[in-house]
């Protein structure tokens, strides 16, 4: 007797977004990374293709890296003072992409000029041949000043630039349209705003198919469940056919995980928690693997130990044969 097939067939697939450009594409990257493409809810391979393998972008800062927690500085050492060297180290640790955050543009971190920021982007592109994510400092006025120059400097490299927000999107959309970059659309844990921002970008000419969405990330124990349910609703809507939620999703895991007290507080202050050197990477790895279950397509991470653990998880998830 044949068992009844209970698999759900979904109306649409998540968009595939390719980041990076090889010499053949007019860029200088060794390879490109394509994310998205799932035709089923995360990892239910019997319902459809699970899509492209989730990618890991390793986070580096142009300035202020020395403020990172000790467990991370142990791994990166003096590299955190030089973005190019830091990028190389990140590549060694298994990065699929480099995620460069231009913290130096923040007024509290020195408020570097647009030219300086653009030079940093160039130096990172020269140091590694991985696809690049360029992320602003989250101060709208500064981002609008700095990111267009960086976009111009990276023209042809098909980077992922972020972030556009509901109240600040026009400048970066225009730059990325002109210079051929992908865009990261950030919404504050709100599925309506996620959709609205996609419409706004679309209204000023940006193709929906080239957007990656960033629904805001929380660390395990710090609102993770809430983010999970938002991502799940968003993914179900996208698979159900809503073109405004069919974009692949990025999770900024490293930043959040390495703010959790469980990840960074020394053992003498948290008796019974075990050595801090093991806790941090585990907190980051568990947060990241949970997001894989929520449908994350692109994870931004920090510690080589957690990157290794998450890669192993991805290997196992991807080894499930399709129906």
């Amino acid at each position: 007797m044949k068992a009844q097939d209970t698999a759900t067939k979904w109306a649409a697939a998540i968009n595939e977004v390719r980041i990076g450009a090889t010499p053949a594409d007019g860029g200088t990257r060794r390879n490109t990374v394509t994310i998205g493409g799932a035709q089923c809810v995360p990892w239910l391979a019997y319902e459809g293709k699970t899509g492209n393998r989730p990618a890991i972008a390793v986070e580096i800062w142009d300035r202020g890296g020395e403020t990172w927690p000790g467990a991370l500085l142990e791994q990166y050492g003096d590299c955190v003072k030089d973005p190019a060297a830091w990028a190389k180290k990140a590549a060694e640790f298994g990065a699929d992409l480099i995620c460069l955050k231009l913290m130096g543009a923040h007024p509290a971190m020195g408020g570097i000029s647009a030219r300086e920021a653009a030079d940093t982007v160039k130096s990172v592109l020269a140091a590694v041949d991985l696809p690049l994510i360029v992320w602003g400092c989250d101060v709208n006025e500064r981002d609008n000043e700095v990111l267009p120059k960086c976009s111009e400097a990276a023209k042809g490299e098909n980077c992922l630039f972020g972030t556009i927000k509901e109240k600040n999107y026009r400048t970066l959309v225009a730059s990325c349209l002109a210079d051929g970059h992908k865009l990261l659309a950030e919404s504050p844990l709100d599925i309506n705003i996620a959709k609205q921002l996609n419409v706004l970008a679309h209204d000023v000419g940006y193709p929906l198919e080239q957007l990656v969405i960033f629904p805001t990330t929380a660390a395990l124990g710090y609102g993770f469940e809430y983010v999970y349910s938002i991502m799940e609703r968003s993914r179900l809507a996208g698979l159900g056919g809503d073109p405004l939620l069919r974009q692949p999703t990025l999770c900024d895991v490293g930043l959040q995980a390495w703010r959790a007290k469980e990840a960074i507080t020394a053992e003498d202050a948290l008796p019974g928690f075990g050595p801090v050197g093991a806790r941090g990477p585990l907190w980051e790895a568990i947060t990241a693997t949970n997001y894989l279950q929520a449908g994350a397509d692109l994870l931004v991470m920090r510690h080589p130990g957690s990157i290794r653990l998450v890669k192993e998880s991805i290997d196992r998830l991807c080894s499930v044969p399709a129906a």
Partner: protein
Amino acid sequence: MITSESGTKTKYMVEFLPAGLKVEVPGGTTVLDAARIAGVVIDSLCGGDGVCGKCRVIVRHGIVRAAATQSLTREEIRQGYVLACEARIDGNVLIDVPTASQVRGKVRDADAVDIRVRESGLLERQRNELDPLVKKHCLRMEPARLENPQSDLNRLYHELAKLNCREESQLGLSVLRRLPGVVRNASGVVTVTSAHRGALTEITDIVSGDSSNPNLAVAVDIGTTSVVAHLIDVATGQSLSSAAKYNSQAVYGGDVLRRIMYCIEQPDGLTQLHTAVIEDINTLIRELLDKVQLSENYITFVVAAGNTTIMHTVMGMNPEWIRREPYVGVSYQPPPFRAAELGIMIHPRGLFYSLPCVSSFIGADITAGVLATGMTQSDEPRMLIDIGTNGEIVIGNKDWMVCASASAGPAFEGAETRDGMRATCGAIDHIRGWSSGQRFSFSTVGNESPCGLCGTAYVDLLAQLLRLQVMDKTGRLNTGNGIARLRKGAEGEPEFVVVKRGERGASRDLVITQSDIANLMRAKAAVYAASKILLTSLGLTMSDLSEIMVAGAFGNFLDLENAVFIGLLPDVPGEKLRFVGNTSLVGAKMAALDRQRYQEARRIANSMTYFELSTDPRFMEAFTSACFFPHTNIEEFPSVMAKVS
């Protein structure tokens, strides 16, 4: 009054200048009546009695018949002047209404209501069978005789029975005490005023002689933000005059909850609210009477509709418990009271009727709306959307009726926006395209110089700003691109100059600010979300509705296409959308003229089911997704999607 003499059934076309409005009327209709039907307001103090000489118009083409009058000079007659109230149509005519005869400072929406009522037939059906709440009967009393020694009151009842007034009557002691003197006048003629009180009829007054004409009533819609009143001739069912003003209670709070708080917190708060709204009603009544030069003694009753809180304050009942769980009012269906007890200045023995409310948050304005639109008569489900300070939604048919309420704010009523105003003279009421001269083409009420924007103009304006991409779909003004007319106003807030100072005589720049847009966005989102949730709760969709009727704040005719474009109204085929005007007022008027309608309003109120949205977790979600032009779920607006792409 439309008079048609025997044998003159032929209809003629009458066109009025400068408005350009046309109307077809039977021969013999006076020019003044034709003007009223066409929606042209001609000054007339005497109400058409031919004595004031104010209603001078010029006949440009065609023939009218007019009796001789002393109000016009020989020279004027030679130029074609006639008195509109005297001249009767006797062919197709072109009439010019000179500036001196146009009424200025007049609220057009109130006038428009009457016109729309005629057009939509809401009132037509009952014109022939008027059965008003308060009637005046003129009768001749048989004198008492030895062979028929009936008491004075019995003889009065006997005469009333001859007039088919057989209801059980009651009357007050003071009226009874005056009876013997009144009936023993020389002619034996008396006028009896009888008022409907459910199963009983109350004889409220008896006077000597015939004073049965006129018998006037006032229908009043008491909104949170605006109060609109009509003076009705009970004999014909026609509105003689109309007036409107803002609700003076606004100084105590913009919405009903704030006003309830004021009642609770201030020792004499309720008295202040009561006095404010009663003074508004009295002001309007004085204005209504001034326009027709009649005394308040002719007004025998007032019928009012408004939301539950406002009706409480009108009657001086404490609304405190409306906002406290379990949210109950003092009375939703109060009996008629002496108007004098409330301080309303009509005939000293006149009555005040309140239409019934449904619950603490669904008021008599909604009952009136359902009554006016005849929703209880249709098989197919229909939806009534009333856009006021509270947005109310009713869905139902002859078998069932559900309703919900959502706080929309008064932005579409022209309040709480920088240059918003009621639809009075000088209000921009429609905004058309952006002309090559880099300005909007627009129209104003009364064709006056623009001095503000009313609700319909805001609907048009939002649609235009979206089309011009001056504003994005979240409502943010696009300050980055050096768009002309976009500037930073006071405190750096972005604003768009709709009309520049000097443009068509504007005395200052008229703008829409970023926070105006936010207010309008919230208002439209609340209305749409409420209708969506109510439908979802019923397991229905917009396409299951045979008609969506829009009532409320909008001064005149709402551009339905623009209203859909901004997501205020659902995107359904145009023929399913109908603008029905101020149904609260129309319902009050219908009840005033027909006792059965008044009783039907009570049945409607009793049969309506209220859905509480504020405790429904889906409402906030629906509201957030509606805070976008036209909507976050653009697929709910297929026609807009088609236009945009």
